[in-house]
């Protein structure tokens, strides 16, 4: 029998680090969220304000708009990344000349820091300098100005995100696919299943934990995107790409509105946790929970 103590010991270093650097600051933010605190208010000290911040939030249109926008961004970006990433991972499993070379090229975007990704895409899209507006106008007659047109800016941030993060999906799925057992596939072949059936009834169920973990990571990273979008559009035009991470960033940093910013963060965190928990329970835990109790 395995001893529980050993289990806890194995888990201990992780828990200690997460408690100190994760939970500690969280508790601080939790307290600040219930205060009225702005460094440059007439009274710059923090005061307990009850749930006043949260009451304000519910009617804060810019914040709610930003949250809604972020969900849209996350949905389109992550969905494209998963589909594309899965497709590419499967292709990389096949025999292919120079496979290592292509895989390396395909991993390159990950290696560019988000802040440089945003800057690079800005250099691509700025009229008068970037090739994208120039050639889109010449070849297709499209007037690309992401500083003016909200839809273009939104699409540009999604494409940038897909370019940057699809490799992550490809790599994690590649690792998962390559460690799949081969018996179920042989069995399916013997049973005469066609490709679609193999995909639906064998590949997908086996890959589900890996796909889900990847979706989770991507969803939560997309929900808190700051650097890239800040560099590309600054959240503009107007609020068209002012995603919630960026919105909070502007409230906490330049505006030094710590109390309200903390409340926004808590609400965003809460919504994210609920969203992920629902996904988790619906897809994975139902099967796993009985085994663990």
């Amino acid at each position, binding site marked *: 029998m395995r001893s529980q103590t050993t289990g806890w010991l194995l888990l201990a270093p992780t828990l200690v680090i997460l408690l100190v650097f994760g939970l500690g600051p969280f508790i601080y933010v939790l307290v600040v969220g219930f205060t009225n605190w702005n460094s440059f208010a007439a009274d710059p000290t923090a005061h307990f304000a009850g749930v006043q911040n949260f009451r304000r939030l519910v009617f804060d249109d810019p914040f709610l708009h930003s949250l809604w926008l972020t969900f849209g961004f996350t949905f389109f970006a992550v969905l494209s990344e998963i589909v594309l990433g899965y497709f590419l991972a499967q292709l990389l499993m096949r025999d292919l000349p120079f496979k290592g070379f292509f895989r390396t090229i395909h991993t390159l975007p990950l290696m560019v820091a988000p802040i440089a990704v945003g800057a690079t895409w800005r250099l691509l899209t700025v*009229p008068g*300098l970037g090739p994208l507006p120039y050639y889109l106008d010449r070849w297709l007659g499209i007037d690309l100005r992401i500083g003016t047109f909200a839809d273009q800016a939104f699409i540009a941030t999604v494409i940038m995100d897909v370019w940057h993060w699809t490799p992550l999906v490809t790599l994690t799925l590649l690792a998962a696919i390559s460690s799949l057992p081969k018996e179920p596939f042989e069995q399916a072949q013997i049973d005469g299943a066609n490709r679609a059936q193999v995909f639906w009834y064998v590949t997908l169920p086996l890959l589900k934990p890996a796909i889900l973990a990847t979706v989770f990571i991507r969803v939560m990273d997309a929900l808190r995107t700051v650097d890239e979008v800040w560099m590309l559009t600054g959240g503009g035009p107007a*609020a068209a790409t002012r995603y919630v991470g960026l919105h909070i960033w502007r409230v906490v940093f330049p505006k030094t509105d710590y109390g309200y910013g903390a409340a926004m963060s808590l609400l965003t965190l809460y919504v994210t946790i609920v969203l992920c928990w629902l996904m988790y329970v619906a897809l994975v835990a139902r099967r796993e929970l009985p085994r663990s109790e």
Partner: protein
Amino acid sequence: MKLRTTVSAVALAIGLMSSAMPAWADFWSDAAKDLKGTTIRGVTESTPPSNYVKDVLAPAFTKATGIKVEFETTSWDQMFDKEIKDMEAKTGLYDVVYIEQDIIYSYLARGFLVDLTKSMADNAKLKAPEFDPANFTTFIDYFKDPTKGNDLFAVPMESFIKTYLYRKDLFGDAEVQKAFKAKYGYDLAPPKDHKQYTDIAEFFTQWGKSHDMQLWGSTVQAHTGHPASWYEFVESVEPTFGVYNWGINAQKNYAASVKNGGSMNGPQAVAALTWFLNNLKYAPPESTQSTWDEIAATFAAGRAAQGLVYGENAAWIATNDSKSKVVGKVGVALPPLEPGVLEDAESGKGYIGYFDGGAFAIPTSSKNKEAALLFLEFIGQPSVQADWAVAGSRITLKSTYDDPKVKAQDEKTDHYYTLMKEKGKLFAGAPTYPFHAQVREAVAPIFYRAITGELTPQQALDKMADAAEAELTQLGYRK
């Protein structure tokens, strides 16, 4: 020749100060006798003037005093964030902080900064003979606190005016002049008022189209996700229409809306915004992604015939041929004005544009205030100014204008420095509000919606006035 000027300036300074002071060469090592080996740490934005401080002045200071200097250079946003955190938490990480003119009132209100006048008076041993606030241009006045007997709280290290730039070559072209006269009925010259500015912008945009040139009539700093656009409006456009201090009336309980006694959504403000937005029609397509730096780049690329450009960029646009296509073709003039505004500015009632710049100060949380004080005095000496001025196109001392290196630069920039020297007093820094960033962040997002056309000028300004008042109430300034 330069050496002589420096020496004479120093001699003059010594003469003006006190003859009882120790000799010049010994002061720094004497004053720092007990401070040798300490390290002071500063934070500043990564710009040419700051990098000159970090790379040239700091090592020179270390050599003279034995005090080590470490400078953290970072981006504009990060710099403010970090120094505010440090001062708010009283951590004492920084001994020298960079302060842009517009945030000084927020810091003063919080008591974040050391009173330099008092420190020097209390500690005569640390008072450098070469350092005298009277040597500085009027820009230093922005760093004095009127509530504390006009004591000095920071030492200016750079200052610029945001001025009107135009393409001298195009304006001077005979064919262009003829066509312009034929169309508008008056001679082409730097515009006196906004109507003329718009005429010129329209004219050159047409000219660019009909001559297949990448040329538009005006730069517009109209980024739709960065406060630079709002800054251009409140600092450089509104004053020329007679709207000052963002349209907030400090006397009337910080009112912003007309109904409460402010002018943020008054008729002049609406006229100003309408004019500003109208210029977008004659601006290159990148304008809605342009902050202060991008409009400088646009102008340097030869894509605009005129525009309002920060002075820190004027020098390189006019002189650096690896960065600019319009070297030698740049003209400088005062911005276009509505009638009466110039009189307002001359009588001190108003101003015609933005006097921008920054300074170094010592946080009260600093653990090495004495060493930091010496450093601030060191960079305020007349003798170190000229090379610094050339490296960063910045001027903070009156004597620097007369330096031969600066004069040579002045010739190449269509007398930008002379303009700043003579007309600088018509420009003004940001209003004395301790809530600068807070109100900016509250109203700028609404302003962006005016640029995208989602709101009309009147609607946007109404909403901005309401948002400003709501924010000021929330902050407790508006009762």
